[in-house]
Every structure is written in C-alpha cells, then in structure tokens.
C-alpha cells in the first residue's frame, strides 16, 4: 500500500489533483465553522461585488453570501458525486462482469438491457426520473446512478471478454479455482485501471449532472448546491458576474482534480509502468 502511495506521488498532476480535492473536501467539512449560520440567510446587501460588505465573493440577488453557498454546496456536490458513482460502479461492474465472464445468452440479455438505457439520452432520462420522483437528494443520486452505469458495464464486459481468454485465467481454471474467486482475484484486478479511471470521470460528470439538474430548478429545494448558485445567478450574469463565475470555478477545479487523480491512480496501479529498481 505504501508502494502504491509512493508511485502515486511520483505523478505531479495527480498530486495537484489530490491536494485540490482535499482542499474542496476541507471546505465542505469546515463549512459550518467558516460560515456559521445557514447559507440561505441574508448576510448583507444584495448585489455586493466581491470583497465588499464583508463578503469575500460578494452576495447574490437576495443578499446571500456566495462564498458560504459554495462551501455548503461543496458538501452536496461531493456527496452526490461519490454516492452516485459508487452505486453506478457497483451496478456496472456486476452486470459487466456477469456478461463478460459467462458470455452466451447471459451476455446477450445483459447487453440488450444496457442498450435499452443507452438509447435514451441520459440527461433527459435523469430529468424525467427526478421530475417523476419529486426532486430530493435521494432521487437525484438515484437518477444519476441509473443514467451513468451503462458505460461502466460496457467497459467491464470488454475487459472481461479479453481477459477471460488469457492463459493465466485458463491456468486458474485448471487449478480448480471457483468462478467467483477467478473473477475477483484474477480478472477484476487486471481490469481495475479502466474502472478506476471511469470512476473518477463518472464522479466528475455526476457533479456536473447534479449541477445541471439544480440549474434547471430540479435540485433538492432544501440543499444549497453549486448548480443552484449558477442557476440563480444566470439571469443577472451581465450585472453580477460573480454569482455564476465562482461556483463555476468550484465545479471546474473539482472535476479537473478528480480527472487528474484518476489518471495518477491508473498509472500507479499498473505494475508494468513501475520504474525499474522500484519495488
């Protein structure tokens, strides 16, 4: 494990990403300390530009502190990103592994099921699901997970298909290992790199999806989120740019950080890329 960490830290981009993500995480955790009181409360005069009226990033059209909104929004965005990614990866890996390892009829059935989801534009489906089940944090996370597992299933299936025919998997078969053990110890570890990269990308796109939903007014009405901030600031962007730009930068930094981390992890976990001499 320490070896993995050392190889990860050798990647400058990955380290920058990890630091950025840690800062966002710290912001989310420390939000109640940094900004006591609710982010929905009026904190000063409406339309204050950044730095005025004691508000670092200005205030919005109702006099709410944008900086506080971003800090509380980070909690929602990160939570939505993490939970929906975990759910979508679990669904995708399970179905993809099933299809790729068993093949035949199972493969056909699973893939047609996957295609069924892929033929519907994912954002439209997400809007539909949230609208039907009334906007709440649970329905948003569920909707995002439901629209983002199909690519995971496809990638995992493709990896499993190619790995299943490798001689080391056949060797495991000849050793008499159980199918579940072959899948978990022989095939899955070798398919991990694309899954991890996909997970980091999915987290990023889940954050974007949640922001888009909130932007359209389909966010959880009780929770402050980055998309909501942009959405509420969009009508006055020409006179008060800071209301949309700062939450936008927050999304940008978080998404970029996640992508950098994903790339660093995938390199660090691949033993063939280890430098010679390093354990």
């Amino acid at each position, binding site marked *: 494990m320490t070896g993995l960490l050392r190889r990860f830290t050798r990647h400058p981009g990955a380290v920058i990403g990890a630091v950025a993500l840690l800062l966002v995480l710290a912001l989310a955790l420390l939000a109640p300390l940094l900004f006591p009181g609710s982010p929905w409360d009026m904190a000063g005069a409406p339309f204050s530009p950044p730095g005025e009226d004691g508000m670092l990033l200005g205030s919005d059209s109702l006099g709410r502190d944008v900086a506080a909104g971003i800090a509380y929004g980070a909690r929602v965005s990160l939570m939505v990103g993490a939970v929906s990614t975990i759910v979508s990866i679990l669904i995708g890996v399970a179905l993809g592994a099933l299809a790729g390892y068993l093949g035949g009829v199972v493969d056909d059935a699973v893939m047609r099921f996957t295609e069924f989801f892929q033929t519907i534009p994912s954002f439209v489906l997400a809007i539909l699901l949230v609208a039907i089940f009334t906007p709440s944090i649970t329905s948003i996370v569920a909707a995002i997970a439901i629209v983002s597992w199909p690519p995971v299933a496809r990638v995992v299936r493709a990896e499993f298909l190619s790995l299943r025919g490798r001689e080391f998997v056949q060797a495991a*078969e000849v050793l008499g*290992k159980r199918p579940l053990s072959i899948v978990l110890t022989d095939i899955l570890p070798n398919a991990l790199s694309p899954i991890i990269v996909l997970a980091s990308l999915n987290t990023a796109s889940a954050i974007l999806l949640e922001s888009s939903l909130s932007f359209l007014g389909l966010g959880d009405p009780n929770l402050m989120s980055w998309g909501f901030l942009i959405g509420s600031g969009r009508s006055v962007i020409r006179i008060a740019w800071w209301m949309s730009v700062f939450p936008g930068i927050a999304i940008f930094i978080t998404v970029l950080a996640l992508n950098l981390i994903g790339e660093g992890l995938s390199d660090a976990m691949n033993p063939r890329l280890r430098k010679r001499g390093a354990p």
Partner: protein
Amino acid sequence: MSLLSVEGLTVGLPKGGDRANAIEDVSLTLAPGEILCIVGESGSGKSMTANAAMGLLPHGLPVRSGRILFEGRDLLTTPPEEMRRLRGSRLAMIFQEPMTALNPLMRVGDQIAEAMRVHGAAAEAARRVPELLEAVNLPDPGNLARSYPFRLSGGQRQRVMIAMALALEPALLIADEPTTALDVTTQMQILRLIREVQGRRGTGVMFITHDFGVVAEIADRVAVMQRGRVVESGTAAEVLNAPRHDYTRALIAAVPRGSAAKREAVAPGEPILSLRGVRKTYHRGGGLFGKGQSFKAVHDADLDLRRGETLGIVGESGSGKSTLARAIVRLVRPEEGEILFHGTDLRPLGREAWKPFRRRIQMVFQDPYASLNPRRSVGEAIAEGPVTHGVPRAAALERARELLRLVQLDPGAMDRYPHEFSGGQRQRIGLARALAMEPELLIADEPVSALDVSVQAQVLALLADIRKRLGLTMLFITHDLRVAAEICDRVAVMQRGAIVEQGATAQVFDAPRHAYTRALLESIPGRGWTPPV
C-alpha cells in the same frame, strides 16, 4: 566486388537500455547471388542490422560509426529521397508476419502493381503481376491477383510478399525471419522458393533467422550474432560443422536433435488416460438467419497414455492438438466421446465433480507472457493452487519456495512480479505452479515454442529431469518434430483433427507409415545436417 558490405557499424541504444549499443562494430559482406544467414537469439541485434541496411532504423537510435556500402555507395549518407527510390527497386525486404504485412482492403494483384507503380514501372504491371505470381509458384495467378488477402493462407501470403519484393528485380533481398510464423511444411516450400528465385536471378539474400536448421537448409555463408556483435562468420560448412566460437558451439548444442535417441521402452502398465471417440466441433457465424459454418477441430483422436511415459502430440497449426489438450482439462468441452482418467469418464463431470481431478491433472501453457497473472507475485501464483484445495497458506508458501529451487530459480523470486522475469524464467514459474499441485499427469501445451533455442534446451532438460524424478506422466503438445524426438517416448501425429499415426518415437521417425508423417519429417529444416557437438 561485393554487393553489400557493412563496415564497423555501431548503432547506439537510448540511455537506460540494457547495453550501450544495439549493434557494435558489425562487419559483413554479401556477394551477388549469395545467401548470407545472420543467426542469433532474440535481442542479438540481427534485425537491427537488416533495418540499418534498409534505412529503417527506429528514431532515437543513432548510428555512432561505420558504413554500409551497397554497390559501392554508402547508404548511411544517401539522402532520404534517394533511399526511398532504392528501396523496393534495388533493395527489397520480406517480413516475419505475413498475416499482417498485406493491406486487407486491397486486392493482391493491385498491391504488387502498386509496388511497381511507385517506382515508375506502372506500364509493365499488368503483364508482370501474373508472371510474378507464377514465379512464386502460386496456383491460378490470374484469379489469385483478383483476390483479397483474407482468402490466402499464411504461406500464400508470404509468397505474395516475396513476389512483391521481387517485382522490380532487386539486387539485394533482406528476409527477416520470413518463415518463423509458418508451419514446417510451408516453411520448407518457402525456403526452396527463396533458393530457387535467387538462383535464377542472381539476387543477393540477407536471411535473418534464429533457427540453425533453416541455416543448414539455405545458407551459403553464416554470421552469428550475440549481444550486438558478430562473434563468428564463415561459410555454412565451416560454421555448422566446425564452429570455433563458444557461443556458436553452445547454440548448435542446444539445437534439438532430429533423430530420436534410443530410449528404454516404458513398461506397458495400466493406461492412466484414454481418449475414446472425442469430438469437438466449432460453429462460426449463423444465428437467426441462415446456418453458419462448422469446423471439426477434433475427431478420431483415440489415444492411451500409460503411467510414466511421455506422449507427444505433433501437428501443424489448426490440426487440433491444442483443442485436444484443452479438452482433457475441461477448458474446452467436447460434444461427445469419453475422456477416461483411471477409468473415470471426465467429460460429463461438472465443475465441482472435476475439482478432485484438478490436483491430479495439471497443465503448462504456451505463452510465458500471458500465462501468469501480471498482478500477482510469483510466490502467490505458485501457492494459489494448493491453497484453493485446502492446504494452509504458510505450508503452501513454504512449498512454493522449494519448487522455485526445483525449477532452478532463486527462492528470492517469491515476492517479485512476473514482468521482472525473462520468458524462460516465466516458463519455469508456470511449471512450478503446475507442480505445486503434485499432479500425476502433466499436460504441456507448446511449452518451449516461444523461447530461444538455448533457453528451450534448458527448459526441455529441466522438464525431462523433473519428469524422471517425480515419475510424472506427460502429454507434450508441440509443432516442432525435433523437440518431440528429444523428449517423447511415443508420438501421435495429428492432421486436421485426427490422429493419423502413432507409435514409439523411433519407429515413427525412422519408419513413418502415413504420407503426412513422411511429409512432416521431410520438412524438418536442416535434416541433412548432423550437428557436430
């Protein structure tokens, strides 16, 4: 005057490589109408020498010194545009892998014509293409010129490549392992063809190979390369029959003998494995609309394997030998027949019922690079099987250490990962993994065909030694008759899914009864040559 002369050529490797120079101070000469074989193991720099002559050195490999004189001019100082004109017209090359060397979307005739067109001979193309195809002994040239490459077999594609290389009657033909990817019988045809064509036109041929049998078959002169240097060169007779350098001697000693050594017959005990009427058919295509094709991979392959003996299954690619081996360990499920192991039919058994037999039947795989899980340490890989069958982990790891010693590897290798080992070492690890189960039957599927000759000889010796020490019974699958002769007590020859002949090794080799066996034996390269060491 010599056609090609390489003088003191040194090509560097990038920093951090395993040696400073890819090739060092290489000097060679090739006269018109002569075949020069460059022999060496992988990594010896033989292909690099050929690529340097063609001006095809990869970027980042600097020529440090030396000259390559072709008909008196230095190719290394020739400008790229002029080099391009020379390539294809005066210098031609054939590559190792015929399956990927042709453009799959272009008709064969058009590809040959294109080779002529780029050198301004388009007018002649229509007339010359059928002639060329005929010259490389391809049947029905007119029809074949209009076919796409996927219709052609590997041997036919290699003939097309040769036709293309000869289209403009080059003075020098460089052939980089042109027969390595081919079956023995096809290899022999291609070797004869190259000999015949170069004899007819007086072409000089630089022939790169790792196989001393091929050298004996085709070479006029030989240069042996080791780690980037030419260690010995001379006429074929000198080098083959009176090698002076130690490395050449070692290489020649490692060549598997073509004739079967007399060995004691194994006492005819109980057969431990018998195949009766096993049949495996593959279906391709088809579906809702129309029927697909079916292909009988194995049929009529009855055999008996007695305790303690080694049975070789010999055949060319597609003969069904690997399918047969995989059917025995249930990696392939045949649709009918009996696979009797100590009288128990294994074929209808399910995964759980099979499990006790996994301990007793083990397999060594062909590809040393694909047969080990890249993410698991060597020790874990070896201990895994016994652990699966209920041996405590500590005991299994202790045993893995002993096994590494048995296959002549350092027990310190336990915690390292497969990518840190060479092909031969990995094959030993694969063997240790199979032996960890303490099997009584070992199935070896082409265990040495991906290895260099000297490594091949070591692994074969190790296999023979372990087999004797542990009293293993072995089913040895190979395409190489020389290897089979070296290690097997009995041999079964497979052709198109059926065993056409089987018997004691000496009997099959000395008095083959089936026409196909005779054809195979006649195709062993260098069978007229008896290695001196």
